[in-house]
């Protein structure tokens, strides 16, 4: 009896203690939340939300269904094999007339021409001779205006373009499209297939720049890590020096240095190494030179911080065990820098594939990377769907790399 009472009171005490702990932790949690909140809100409002909305543009498809609500509605019940019903033709006439009034016509024709380029003339022609309400059969009247309205494929394209969401932009960014006749995904026409090439070029330039940064940065980082503190701090400032000037100034400086009668070409000619100036700028060479220079610190810093934490003992131990200094370096030192190599390589590669200013200034037409086309669609043709589709794919590539990196570092931490 007394024993069970003791257990009961013990339980009550435990519950009481847990409640106390929760209470104590609650105020701690609230405090940390309050500390995070300003930055969190800032990121949410100024970063996550705008990017999120922008990303939805890659699948968003408002033009047709907002300009042609009645036709969209009517096409929903269409079987897609024969010509649509008389009512659909009625709706089309009505929608075209109101679209003309509300000024949504431009966006509408542009969107439809993505599906079938000839759609533009079909709409203009139809609008000029829009059948009035006296026509008994809108279907016959429209087909009389343009025979395209008697072609099932044009209706299929219209239906496809009228959905609220579309894979059109994302597929186009990968040089594919949905064939409106069959509904299957097919390769885009060769004259429209440019994006896969651009992605390949982007990853190629990113890869070359990353490897160059690694080859140039690794020895520097190693040297810095082995120097005494005072000297390495001074030299670290030199490594960070590029950050003190703006990216555009540095890129412009490269143009001055690399151009045909620039410092480098003149020196080469003066020394008699070349007879005529070498083309170093406004081509791939210039892009790679300038980007490698700009991105070097991002490789050196993570490598340095990892190397700094490796005690010199390890290499000494390996040598004392009979390894030649090169073998000791390769088998004992280098593997321990993998975390820095992964971080530096990833950082450099991700920054490189997103580069815009440097290739735009020192590159030629064939050296422009994905970001250039994002800017092109955003600023020049105002095709936000295409711009955000390219951007999304770039973002996905980056996220995949992060996942790979996470896996790699997790593995090394598990040890």
């Amino acid at each position: 009896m007394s024993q069970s009472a003791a257990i009961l009171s013990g339980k009550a005490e435990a519950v009481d203690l847990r409640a106390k702990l929760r209470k104590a932790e609650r105020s701690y949690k609230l405090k940390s939340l309050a500390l995070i909140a300003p930055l969190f809100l800032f990121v949410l409002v100024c970063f996550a939300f705008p990017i999120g909305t922008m990303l939805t543009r890659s699948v968003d498809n408002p033009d047709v269904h907002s300009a042609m609500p009645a036709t969209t509605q009517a096409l929903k019940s269409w079987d897609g094999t024969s010509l649509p019903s008389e009512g659909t033709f009625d709706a089309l006439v009505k929608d075209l007339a109101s679209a003309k009034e509300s000024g949504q016509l431009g966006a509408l024709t542009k969107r439809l021409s993505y599906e079938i380029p000839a759609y533009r003339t079909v709409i203009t022609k139809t609008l000029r001779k829009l059948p009035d309400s006296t026509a008994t059969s809108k279907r016959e009247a429209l087909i009389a205006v343009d025979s395209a309205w008697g072609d099932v494929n044009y209706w299929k394209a219209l239906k496809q373009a009228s959905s609220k969401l579309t894979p059109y932009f994302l597929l186009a960014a990968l040089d594919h499209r949905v064939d409106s006749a069959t509904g299957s995904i097919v390769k885009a026409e060769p004259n429209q297939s440019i994006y896969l090439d651009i992605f390949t070029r982007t990853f190629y330039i990113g890869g070359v720049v990353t490897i160059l940064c690694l080859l140039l940065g690794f020895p520097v980082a190693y040297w810095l890590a082995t120097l005494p503190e005072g000297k390495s701090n001074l030299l670290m400032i030199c490594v960070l020096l590029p950050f003190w000037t703006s990216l555009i100034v540095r890129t412009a400086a490269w143009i001055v240095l690399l151009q045909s009668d620039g410092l480098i070409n003149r020196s080469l000619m003066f020394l008699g190494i070349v007879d005529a100036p070498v083309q170093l700028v406004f081509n791939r060479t210039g892009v790679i030179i300038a980007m490698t220079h700009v991105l070097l610190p991002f490789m050196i810093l993570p490598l340095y911080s990892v190397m700094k934490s490796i005690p010199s003992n390890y290499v000494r131990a390996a040598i004392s065990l009979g390894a030649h200094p090169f073998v000791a370096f390769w088998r004992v030192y280098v593997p321990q820098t993998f975390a820095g190599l992964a971080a530096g390589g990833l950082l450099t590669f991700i920054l490189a594939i997103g580069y815009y200013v440097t290739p735009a200034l020192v590159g030629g037409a064939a050296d422009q990377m994905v970001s250039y086309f994002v800017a092109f669609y955003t600023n020049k043709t105002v095709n936000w769907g295409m711009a955000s589709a390219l951007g999304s794919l770039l973002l996905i590539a980056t996220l995949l790399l992060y996942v790979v990196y996470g896996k790699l570092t997790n593995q090394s931490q598990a040890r």
Partner: protein
Amino acid sequence: MNHLVSFKNIQKTYDGFRPVVKDLNLDIKEGEFVTLLGPSGSGKTTSLMMLAGFETPTHGEIFLKDKPLHNLPPHKRDIGMVFQNYALFPHMTIEQNLAFPLSVRKMNSVDRKEKVRRALDMVKLTDFAKRYPAQMSGGQQQRVALARALVFEPKLVLMDEPLGALDKQLREHMQLEIKHLHKQLGLTVVYVTHDQSEALTMSDRVAVFNDGVIQQIDSPAAIYEAPTKSFVAQFIGENNTLIATFVSRDESHTIARLSDGSLIRAISVVGAKPGDQVALCIRPERVVVGPAGSTPLTARIQEYIYLGDHVRMITEIAGQPNFMIKLPASQMDSSWTVGSSISISWAPEHIRALDVTTH
């Protein structure tokens, strides 16, 4: 010569004017366990690193089996080394760590596996082969480091404060384990430490370093019982120093006078002229206490510390404070209180007249 290692007139300086090691001469016999003991900055680690090949002597020559070492790079010396903090390769398993010295020697994988297995057996870590160093305790890592330094069967093994990072109990256990391996395998060990009890426990000979010079090299018992320098007397164990004036000497003994006029007879170690100062050194446990007035020498008790099995008294003799007396609790007397005087004496062979240091 049957010396495995000989340091001949070795000098080392890093900056060109401050010597770290001054004129080191040391011969180590095959199978010997020699400890270099000294405070930090005394040159003991530098000496070890010169032997391993990671530092080069500024002057002099080191011989290994009578061959000069100066042109032999460290990876060809075939000297096993255990580092402070073990230096186990963190990206390799224990097995791979042990196989490393064998694989750089191009040993075939069958022999390699066998040797690794035997080395793991030797340090009783057979079940840990697949683990990474970070998954093991300090004591286990220490044993792996030991096994790795021994797996390629070097004749000479160097150890640079290998037990410094372990707690006391583990350290004492490892001291014995290293000692046993030394006996079993017939190794020659050069061991660096600043821990005097470690040096006394393990070594055949202890070389006490200070200021880049070996102050004394001898067996642990001789180092403790018969120090030849007051630095050694003070560095090893507890010691009392009385400063006295040299009066005269006969064959083996020195007579010196304390400031209160009492004459003390001590074993002569240092040469001195009348009027010179000498340091008379005696261990606290060698002091005998009798009733007041029974001997010519009187000490006044400044502090009295009870430690269960023994007592310590800090006393003042002839105006010199901090003279420590250590007595078994059984010889305790209740009349010994702070401020009272006692008579002390010692056997003349336990007090030694040494040089006066500025320490």
